[in-house]
């Protein structure tokens, strides 16, 4: 896969492919960071279709190639900040979500976008245990979903997305904690009600709907003020976490007037 370079890319050095594909939180394949790399190979991503529905003019089942055709692909080198206070830089390949939603025809009353991951316990062994309320769900406000930084990724480092990174198609929202960027999407639903995401449903005090990267609002059990860059070595130290993961110039206006300590 090749993607056109994008002005939204960071010039920071990306993590290696080995790091990006062997250190994953993808509980559908197990809770250890190495489980997805070991077990996601069994997931069959072909054929695959994404059901776009709800408040859209053209609901239906879309193939991955329809959503992210080769000629529309862009390379987006984004910082990723996990809620666990580590971070990476990842060269995604994908398309802006806005274009996909435009083609489905968002109806005027729609205010939110809900996403859902595949539920297939025979190939996703983590789903055999009630670690989370399967299938994994996430959601965005419509303006967040339409923001040019928000993409659906189908590739990584010039290759099709490896299964452990959310093949064949996943969301990437770089100013939010990593868990918002839902993987292996099978359903996108436009709605007028705020969806409840999986982590929010499980532990509403710890995980909010917005989950914007915010060094001033700590996770109740750990600080979000700093982060450790994966690959920095044994004595690489910690970096200050940036508001909106460093994307404040582009996205801060989405939250003007909101109390982000309340809407965390």
């Amino acid at each position, binding site marked *: 896969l090749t993607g056109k370079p994008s002005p939204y890319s960071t010039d920071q050095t990306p993590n290696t492919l*080995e*790091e990006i594909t*062997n*250190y994953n939180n993808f*509980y559908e394949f197990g*809770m250890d*960071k*190495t489980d997805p790399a070991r077990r996601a190979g069994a997931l069959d991503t072909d054929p695959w279709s994404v059901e776009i529905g709800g408040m859209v003019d053209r609901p239906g089942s879309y193939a991955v190639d329809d959503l992210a055709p080769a000629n529309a692909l862009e390379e987006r080198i984004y910082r990723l900040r996990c*809620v*666990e206070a*580590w971070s990476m830089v990842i060269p995604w390949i994908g398309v802006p979500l806005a274009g996909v939603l435009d083609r489905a025809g968002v109806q005027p009353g729609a205010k939110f976008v809900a996403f859902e991951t595949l539920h297939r316990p025979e190939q996703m062994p983590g789903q055999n245990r009630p*670690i*989370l309320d399967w299938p994994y769900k996430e959601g965005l406000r419509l303006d967040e979903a339409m923001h040019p930084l928000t993409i659906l990724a189908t590739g990584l480092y010039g290759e099709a997305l490896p299964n452990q990174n959310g093949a064949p198609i996943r969301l990437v929202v770089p100013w939010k904690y990593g868990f918002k960027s839902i993987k292996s999407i099978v359903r996108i639903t436009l709605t007028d009600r705020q969806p409840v995401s999986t*982590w929010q449903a*499980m532990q509403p005090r710890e995980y909010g709907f917005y989950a914007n990267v915010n060094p001033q609002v700590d996770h109740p*059990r*750990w*600080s979000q*003020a*700093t982060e*450790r860059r*994966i*690959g920095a070595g*044994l*004595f*690489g*130290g*910690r970096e200050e976490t940036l508001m909106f993961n460093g994307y404040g110039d582009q996205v801060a206006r989405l939250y003007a007037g909101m109390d982000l300590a309340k809407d965390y």
Partner: protein
Amino acid sequence: MRAALNGWLRRLPVWALWLGGLVPLALLVWDTLTGGLGIDPIRDIEHRLGRTALYFLVASLAVTPALRILGISFMRFRRALGLLCFTYAGLHVLSWMLMDMALLWGAMARDVVKRPYLVFGMAAFVMLLALAITSNNWSVRRMGAQAWRRLHRLAYLAAPLVTLHWIWALKTFPLEPVLWLSAILLLLASRIAVPRPIRWGAPAAAK
């Protein structure tokens, strides 16, 4: 068989336990130097040191029940088990300070008083420190056996705290530390339920 095992344990030098007990540390150093750790080596170092400390803590707590219930005496090794636990716990804390937190003293201090998993972990570590400092004959004599034993019951408080430290550090409810917590509570219960050695008939087994 019990007598044979006890006889064999009596002949096993304590330094042999130390030697075996430091094998996990040697393996960790080896893995660190040869790149055998995972993508985030700091996390692996912290976790392996912490886990090994817990294993030795549980082993030291199992010594008395093993003697009372099974009639097998690991008594000679208990101090070494406790000190091995403290060695790993100390390295665990040190790796957190040096590598994970990169000596950000302010952040560490704020976290230790505010974050439950660090409050639990650090409280357990302070207790283990007190036990390690007094793990010598001189301290037993100075404190008196009674007071010394009372102090060392802290191990039964430190151990569950260690498992809570583990549970609270994770995003979802984990099975493994819960199993360890159950094992610790079972060992504690056995101390109360079996207050003195069960007499195992054959006199050879008495010692």
